């Protein structure tokens, strides 16, 4: 897998697993061992999708009743 911040490449397991904010999404948070950035990783594809900054939620919003809580849908 390739870090989307610094392009460091290693097997996915080398990127420290942080957590999965949404159990029903395959996007997890991992940390690049080289630049220490938090990455949004698609576990199905084994790809780092994005760098995660404070406040960002690449996994989107819980299902529930949509449209009531304002949120960014991804």
């Amino acid at each position, binding site marked *: 897998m390739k870090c989307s911040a610094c392009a460091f490449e290693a097997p996915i397991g080398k990127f420290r697993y942080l957590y999965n904010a949404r159990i029903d999404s*395959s996007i997890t948070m991992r940390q690049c061992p080289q630049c220490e950035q938090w990455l949004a990783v698609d576990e*199905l594809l084994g790809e780092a999708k994005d760098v995660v900054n404070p406040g960002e939620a690449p996994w989107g919003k819980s299902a529930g009743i949509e449209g009531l*809580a304002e949120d960014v849908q991804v």
Partner: protein
Amino acid sequence: MGQSTARTEKESSVEELKNRREWWFVAEKTRSKRLDYLRKGVWKKGAIGGNYAPGIKIDLTFPQLFIDKWQEHEGEAIMLQKAHALAHVLDNIPIFITDNSQIMGYIGSAPHNIVWHWQGISMVNEEIYNEEGIIPEPEEESLEILANLNDYWGGRTAVDKLARVLDPEDAVKFMSGAIGWGTPTSAATYSTKDFDYIFKGFEAILAEVEERMEETEEKLQGNPSPEILPLYDKLPRWEAMQIVLEAGIRYAERYARLARTLAEHFESDPERREELLRIAETCERVPAKPPRNLQESLQFDHFVQVLSRYETFEGAWPHRPDYIHGPYYDKDVNQDKRLSKEEALDLVGEHLIRTHEVGIFAPKWAREGLQGITGTWVWTMGGVKPDGSDACNDMTVAYMQAARLVRVSNPTFGFRWHPKVKDEVMRECFECIRHGLGYPSMRNDPVLVANTVHWYGHPVEEARTWVHQACMSPCPTTKYGCQPMRMASATANCAKMIEYALHDGYDPVVNMQMGPKTGDPREFKDFEDLFGAWVKQMEWLRNILVRTVNLGRVKDPEFFGRPFLSAIYERAVETGTDACDPSNGDRGNAWVTGFTWVENADSLAAIKKFVYDEKKYTMDEVLDALNANWVGYEEMRLDFVKNAPKWGNDDDYVDDLMVRCLREVSRHSKENRCPSNNTWPLLPENVSGNIHYANLVGALPNGRRLGDALYDGGISPGPGLDKKGPTAVLKSCGKFDHVTDGRAFLLNQRLSPTQLSGEKGYQLWKAYMKTWADLGLDHVQFNMVDDATLRAAQKDPEKYQEVIVRVAGYSAHFVDISRKTQDNIIQRTVQGLG
């Protein structure tokens, strides 16, 4: 003219702020100057993401004063030795009076200090060297003081002593940190307090003690017999009670003296001088004598709380302040008109602030489980009187209004709802929730009174006096109902039940055989075999925790000693015993706190469906996936998350399993016995234990990986997994009996602030609450802050310092909790009502 224009401007801008739901600014604009000063003057004591705020220091004056006298009295009965040491602290610790304040008393020698209770566990004491920033200057000197203290206390703390009598295997497993949370000693504890008794005044209690001692001395002079032998041990205990009660009175007198000095020599403002003289008069009166007015009753109460927290780390605050102080409010405000409503509100608001500012050092693991706060200080509001009539009063309303003005994250309120609660009081509750405080939590009083009678046999009149013993568990505040010590150290990391059932009792995370060997699941022929293994692991887990806590409880008077608590416990005063001694009539009110509980039902349901019913996967495949922490099994994992039935959707497949698990636990709860020979029901709830245990619970069949937060607790559905709406959640939760199937059940719900605005919003909420009550649920609490605000707060924490959220049994400032916890809260489903 000018004034009224100014007011309209102020009002209109407040309206605007309300429309934008900027509640912190609404509070700032509407509260008195005094409350504004006092609120902003508070030093934040809760840890921020696990670390203390800059400027917070450990108080070293306290332990130094204590140990001076402690060593002088070496060899005396522990309660007496401690009484001497505490009295010395109370006589000499620096005290202070903050500008504008009217309620006195603080634990520590300056407002930015937190106390460190070093008599609990030496292991924790050793950690203090690694704490950055909280060692007072000059650091070298402080470190030397700490080292000397640790040298002396190593091996002498309560838990050190307990470890020597525990079964060694139990001790290793208990201390592994994997299965339980907390320490079985009253060195880290909380206690119910009976203010009907305490408000007699310390002088009256002293007279009672005196009488007992005289009686006893007379008996000791009489005919020698085995009956009189135990009396010899009682005398030093009574003496200890005398010493601390007298020291408590002197401590208050010190404030009276300071207030008088300030009035006479320092204060030039005549109004403040009046206040200082009133403070002096108040502190001369209480706690020595019964209170006569609201200021005296609040002051008496606060002195008692402060004195107990000098004695030990009281991590919760069982209390019912509206009930206790209501009559004094009524007398001052309604009858004598001695106080205006605004003046009363100032006192009530300050009561919240004085409580909020209390800080006690906690080790890192405890701070992680209780992010952002010092302890779970849930005050009980509303409810009924012993005769069953409505107990809500003007003070109930005043506390709710004051809470919105001072917006503290601690204490929070739990409201005892019952069918006779008036609409105006319900509106006050809703306003607090709507203002994003996350409290009050709503409790179903008839259900919980029945529950309290069912599990322990408390008489119904006594059960009706109940307060939240910690976040959730009701406890009567009566002579034999009061619980002197935290028994909830029997806090079970319940997800381990299913984890061990799937691993033959082995813990793959801490790498040791923990539970009994219940067999290789690959050999199980059907679901019943798996369930049987689960039952055995559940029983083992509860047994080891309950055993340890029972022992800790019985040994506490010998290993720790509570002179002050004993002096305010009627049954201890009467019998010359330590308050924690279960032989003095304690009826028992123990419970096992169940962290990470719902994972069991969801995991069992997934396996039942996929492995045994549909045979879509073999047990081999499931175990392989779990052992790989689902890495490389993402598709299968998503199948387990999305296509297996999940608790909270009114789906009988999984709900029936939940009920079955609870019934097994209930049966076992009656087999487990506390030292008073009473039961140990389960109480599912998490503080932020779901985050603390994220790295201690391995992958589970509900689709969770090692490292992921667990569900947010109690009987709350997994975040985002309750897809059928709020009524389905309530219906699932209503499928078991909240009286007989456990002690209490925490339910978190998120509601939309936009949907619940205005009168319509209140009516929607009220209808929801009716369904909740009709279904017989015992608890529900709400977060009403929208995702956009929470995300913005993550992005720009400086700007959102004051956003409060409900974490679990407590509220915290959102910016003080870790990102993992923040994300966990945001992921909770926002339920649309109506």
